[in-house]
């Protein structure tokens, strides 16, 4: 019996040394997520554990829907902003920059990207504060008379979100544009196309996959973001992430928290798929 066991073990050795990663991944990612879904549809009362969709129904009320919508707008808007602000940068780095300045510029782009985002958020406090850099400069230049209150407003959230997520959008667009054949541009110009025509008909369509990757790399984490709205927006407005962390950490209500998390994830997935579909349709139109 023991011998048979050893034989199996030796024959299947690659399986046994390879399998821990799979176990780990399933145990600590897929099982917890399934458990979360399970929690979201159960209720515990005197009768014991029972199935319920009631808590999902409870979330179909204006205040909660407003939270979902607000996060959706923030995520979409931030993704659009990051992609449109970032595209020229990616283009410049990939197509225009000289080899030497390129590696330096890339490094300078990676540095804030890998810096802790709390540090990034905190850095903006010094710019936005009442006596901060922005107000000081604007008042010295006599553009404004009274200091602006930007901290703890929606504007602060948007600017800091753009700041933190911009590199996420630039990187995939850069990766695509770097493989872009510059001779296509020359061909287009030689054939008499104008700069904007070349951009719309050649450069943009060929780099669209990078744009989409960048869009979703920003869109998905932005949706659940709770630290930036909390710190920069002064917790004045609830976002999906802040409500989730409220249920789990402050209220200690796992069941409601799980329901809202699953609802949020559903909304996110639906929105992402819809957006992707719309983008694909648009790309086909342009072509």
């Amino acid at each position, binding site marked *: 019996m023991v011998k048979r066991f050893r034989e199996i073990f030796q024959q299947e050795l690659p*399986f046994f040394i390879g399998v821990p990663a799979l176990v780990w991944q399933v145990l600590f990612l897929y099982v917890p997520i399934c458990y979360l879904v399970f929690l979201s549809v159960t209720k515990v009362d005197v009768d014991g554990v029972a199935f319920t969709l009631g808590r999902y129904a409870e979330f179909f009320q204006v205040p909660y829907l407003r939270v979902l919508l607000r996060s959706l707008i923030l995520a979409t808007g931030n993704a659009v902003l990051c992609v449109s602000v970032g595209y020229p940068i990616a283009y410049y780095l990939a197509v225009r920059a000289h080899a030497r300045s390129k590696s330096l510029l890339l490094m300078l782009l990676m540095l804030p990207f890998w810096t802790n985002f709390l540090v990034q958020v905190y850095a903006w406090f010094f710019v936005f504060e009442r006596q901060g850099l922005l107000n000081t400069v604007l008042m010295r230049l006599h553009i404004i008379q009274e200091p602006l209150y930007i901290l703890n407003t929606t504007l602060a959230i948007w600017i800091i979100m753009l700041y933190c997520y911009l590199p996420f959008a630039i990187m995939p667009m850069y990766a695509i544009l770097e493989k872009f054949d510059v001779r296509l541009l020359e061909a287009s110009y030689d054939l008499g196309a104008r700069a904007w025509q070349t951009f719309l008909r050649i450069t943009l369509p060929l780099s669209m996959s990078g744009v989409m990757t960048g869009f979703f790399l920003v869109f998905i984490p932005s*949706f659940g973001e709770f630290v930036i709205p909390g710190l920069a927006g002064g917790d004045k407005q609830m976002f999906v992430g802040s409500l989730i962390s409220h249920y789990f950490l402050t209220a200690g209500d796992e069941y409601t928290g799980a329901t809202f998390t699953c609802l949020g*994830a559903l909304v996110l997935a639906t929105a992402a798929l819809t957006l992707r579909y719309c983008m694909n349709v648009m790309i086909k139109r342009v072509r």
Partner: protein
Amino acid sequence: MENQYGISRVTLPMYVALVYAFLYIPIMVLVTFSFNESAFSHAWKGFTTDWYVQLWESTEVWDALQNSFIVALGTVSASLTMGFLIVVCGSYTFLGRTLILFYGSLAAPEIVTAVGLLSFFTLFNIPLGIITLIAAHTVMGLGYVVPVLHSRFSELDYNLIEASLDLGATRFQTFRSIVVPLMAPALLSVGLLVFIVSWDDFIISFFCSGGSAQTLPMYVFSMIRSGPTPVVNAISTLLLFITGICVTTFLSFRTRMGGMLW
């Protein structure tokens, strides 16, 4: 030819400079103010290194630094070992077909994974702490390690492995003297990437540490919340510095590997 590139010959570099200024002005202000004498107002009072001295003497910071370091090292070793083994063994067994399961972990928003893990740990009454943090971060780490190593491994010249086996080397010898050296650059660079990811992570740590094992980002967060002092600037400056070193090392590996991972 050159001038056909049109309007953007001047506008584009100017725009790029502007965006880089946007990226760097806050960071530069932050670093400058870590040397500011005044603790409360944000006006410049004078140069001092007091905050760094305070930082040096604070036991909380050292504890947080130690926790961050242990968690990051634990995460790197666990995810690198397990990820590498499943990638290599995947080519012999059905495990190769399960690798797709590792590609999904980056698509799920981090907060979902975090609250899922939190409820999971609570269900089994597992006390939250460094161990749970490493377990959680390793899932994130595998999400980077497996895809990167898999793509690298499938580019390897399989003839080398076959030759080694034909010449009588055992599977273990082949693994040790053929596969590992060939994969070393990828292992190093993805290891560094995972280190930075774990080192910087806030969301998962925030949910899965239970407050008992404070990592550096969590410490920074609580300080910002409770009214920041220039000590936070000093920590932030140090973090920037550490990240700078990591990024430079990472990029030098990356260039040697021919630009994988963006």
